[in-house]
């Protein structure tokens, strides 16, 4: 990281340097939109073709955990925005506090995601040879985290979905391909974002960011908000397919 407010050799003014950095980040976010766009297209096509399987897959996710994580990420966007504001208005201590809060919220998200992922592994819902959408209803003793009442609902839903789509297991696997592909990519972006936030925290603890020069806070903020927005799309796409009844 270079000195506070230093001008790189290729630029003439600090303003030009700041504009350049932020334009670069915006264009990078465009490439990210296209990147997630590809997998969202794959999701859309398959959801259209295999709706019952996708609805069934979606119903096996925990709306409570997903909803909680949505709130966590929205809160982290707020703390990030506050960090940017603190940097712009020169409140040096607040920058570090808000960055720390953002990082902590990010880790809360990872924790919840870890619980969700490990449940899916235990319930045989990871695409591959052992994928079995009916595993829990057939082996209730191995899925103790699902209550008896929930199990009844799931049994009923699976029977209905199987009636609509005899090849339910294969097609639910496509849903879970989308689930792990999309949330996995999103989580990877979160990991990179958390790394960037820690890098910022180091800079802010050293007092590097001033109202005149806070470009890194600004553009990492853009990135973090983008990652949040992706989740705002993923949550309804993955968790809320068939919850309106």
């Amino acid at each position, binding site marked *: 990281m270079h000195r506070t407010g230093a001008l790189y050799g290729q630029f003439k003014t600090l303003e030009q340097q700041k504009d350049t950095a932020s334009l670069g980040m915006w264009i990078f976010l465009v490439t990210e939109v296209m990147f997630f766009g590809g*997998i969202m297209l794959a999701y859309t096509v398959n959801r259209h073709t295999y709706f019952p399987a996708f609805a069934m897959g979606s119903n096996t996710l925990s709306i409570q955990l997903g909803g909680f994580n949505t709130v966590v990420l929205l809160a982290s966007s707020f703390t990030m925005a506050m960090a940017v504001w603190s940097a712009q208005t020169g409140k040096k201590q607040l920058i570090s506090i808000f960055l720390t809060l953002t990082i902590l919220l990010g880790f809360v998200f990872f924790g919840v995601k870890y619980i969700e992922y490990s449940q899916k592994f235990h319930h045989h819902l990871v695409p591959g040879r052992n994928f079995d959408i009916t595993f829990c209803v057939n082996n209730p003793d191995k899925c103790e985290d699902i209550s008896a009442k929930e199990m009844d609902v799931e049994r009923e839903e699976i029977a209905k979905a199987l009636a609509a789509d005899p090849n339910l297991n294969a097609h639910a696997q496509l849903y879970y391909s989308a689930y792990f592909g999309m949330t996995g990519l999103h989580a990877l972006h979160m990991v990179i974002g958390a790394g960037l936030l820690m890098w910022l925290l180091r800079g802010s603890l050293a007092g590097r960011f001033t109202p005149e020069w806070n470009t890194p806070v600004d553009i990492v903020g853009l990135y973090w908000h983008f990652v949040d927005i992706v989740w705002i799309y993923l949550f309804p796409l993955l968790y809320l397919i068939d919850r309106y009844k």
Partner: protein
Amino acid sequence: MPEKHYLNATYGIRSWLLTTDHKRIALLYLASVTFFFFIGGFFAMMIRLHLLSPNGYLLSADTYNRMFTMHGVAMIFFFLIPSIPAVLGNFLIPLMIGAKDLAFPKINLLSWYIYVVGGAFTLYSMVTGGLDTGWTFYTPLSTVYSNSAVAPAVIGVFITGFSSILTGLNFLVTVHTMRAPGMTWFRLPLFVWAHYATSVVMILGTPVIAITLALAGMERIFGLGFFNPAMGGDPILFQHLFWFYSHPAVYIMILPAMGVISELIPTFARKKLFGYHFVAAASLAIAVIGFLVWTHHMFLTGQSTYSALAFSFLTFLVAIPSAVKTFNWTATLFGGSISFDTPMLYAFGFLGLFLIGGLTGLFLGCLGIDMHVHDTYFVVAHFHYIMVGGAVMGYLGGLHFWWPKITGRMYPEWLARIAAFILFVGFNLTFFPQFVLGYLGMPRRYHVYPPEFQVYNVMSTAGASILAIGYLLPMIYLTWAAFYGKVAGDNPWPATGLEWKTPSPPPTENFEVTPVVTWDAYDFHNRPDLGLDVPGHSAVVQTHGNG
């Protein structure tokens, strides 16, 4: 030559491998794309030698499949796509707009390292037996059935995509924020416009192939199912996603070459380019419409007739801006003071070959003809006329044109003219017979063929041998000229661009004082500094008045 320039500013391997100077990074790219070009060329020669006889005695069927696949992978992802942008664009864009460097010099270096890492994965695939899926990686062959080293190649191409994304991003930001005072948008050389359009395609298209290959790779390695019909996935979806990038990728290859031609023709016709604004807009139009034609690669996948009709129409539409450019280049020649230096020979070669390549593209955009010649050598000949006849001719023309700027020294002119001639003859002898072969029905990617096709195949192989000499010659004499050529001077042609107003080779910071631009691109009339004997602008106006 200037005493201090970017080549001798610092010494040692570290000063090259850790450089952030766009000019040195361009040379790093030059070395690596040349390496992959000759690897791809080797595979091409193996294909052509094998096809000398109808039964193909040289390679087994399986090896043949790997040869044409690796030829495509090496040439497209590791040579054609980075060639002009990452070498010439990298070197020239900051010089042309009067900047000290690209906007993000470190990201520029990072892009080269990403390219090298991606290249290493692909080389690993090649030395562990290669892959046999075709460069298109069609599923489920690539994800389920192929027994070759698909995964490392897919990972390599995936990684290399990010070098392309970063290059495009860097160019876009640079053109927006780094222009010198007076360098307005419509004073930009058309080379810069072409690269701007190319960069748009790079940043919008490349992420899509990245996610597509990531999904295909995860399908092969972890068993995800989007493209696997056994799990209800859809291989056609892969083709849509693949071509959504890979058709625009053709414009990543040809647009920069068009940019080179737009520099060469005014310089060697010593005349302002005809219809500057139209040529600039045509670059953007190609970039935009180029995104809307991808399913013309898939007319035979059983897509709806109406969809095919729409894509056929859009394919015709994208030919219009290409034609606008070709007509404007030709119109520039009219009344010009034309000299036949080597770069101009390549420009003429480009015009003729791109014309054939482009028009046969329209044949293929016609639904009826496409049914007939789909997956035949007609298609192979068509896209080689665009990619080799167009993109590589432009690349070589550009290398010759800017070699005095890059190295400070001239290449041997007559040898270079002879090489250009050999290339042109060799190219046409290689690929023109393939049009005939395809029309007669020889399918592409087959390792054997009926004996009646042999004469055309022998012609094609003979042409490929001549072509190989045509490629080896410039590599040898350009390398020689970099060290022993005649000292070129700042502006040997002379040409009008800002890059010629700095010493050859340029100093590390490009310009000693930031230039202030007061002239339009290719304006030979108002440039007394070029020392040319062209009538002043007012004289031209008067002639018009009298006429």
